[in-house]
């Protein structure tokens, strides 16, 4: 087969780029554990409370160990349920120390919602029947807005909360 010498150059360039891309992808998936946020953990959307993590008393921020936190919440039209504070008011602001490891667990009883901590890599789709999980280290202090970024209905714009990362 005859190939023009320029053709050999761009074929090498193209195949080389593909190899580099696959190596980075493989490194991220197998060494760093990057995976889709909804990895097949199912839940009955009509009976979320039957699942330990989503009982009303377990919602919101929980410290499980030194520098280890879990945030459980239920996204529903049109609210993020982080549980209630000591006065019985709904929690809309959570505070986590910088550098801690946080596991977010979110589910929904109704329609598809989004869960995005704006400005970070915490960005998930929340689907009825599934538990979306994402574990991350919050490094940069600041106040982040949590927003729903999947259009879920007329009250979509009212679904927000704040996350404060403090030093």
């Amino acid at each position, binding site marked *: 087969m005859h190939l*023009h010498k*320029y053709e050999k*150059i*761009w074929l090498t360039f193209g195949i080389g780029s593909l190899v580099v891309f696959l190596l*980075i992808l493989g490194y991220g998936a197998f060494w760093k554990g990057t995976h889709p946020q909804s990895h097949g953990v199912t839940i009955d959307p009509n009976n979320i409370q039957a699942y330990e993590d989503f009982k009303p008393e377990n919602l919101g921020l929980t410290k499980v160990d030194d520098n280890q936190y879990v945030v459980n919440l239920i996204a529903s039209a049109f609210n993020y349920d982080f549980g209630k504070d000591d006065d019985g008011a709904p929690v809309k602001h959570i505070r986590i120390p910088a550098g801690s490891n946080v596991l977010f667990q979110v589910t929904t009883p109704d329609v598809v919602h989004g869960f995005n901590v704006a*400005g970070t*890599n915490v960005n998930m789709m929340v689907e009825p029947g599934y538990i979306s999980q994402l574990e991350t280290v919050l490094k940069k202090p600041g106040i982040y807005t949590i927003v729903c970024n999947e259009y879920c209905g007329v009250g979509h714009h009212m679904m927000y909360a704040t996350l404060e990362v403090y030093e």
Partner: protein
Amino acid sequence: MATKINKQKHVENETSNLKGTLISVMVLGMIILISWFGVFALFLSR
């Protein structure tokens, strides 16, 4: 007569100039690579 025409065509293919094609392929390739690594760097830094 017919063989003469065939020979001429063959010569034309041998000297086809692909310099412009090479440049445009490389420009497109660099744009794709730079934007991919830009997005990847954003993912790693957050």
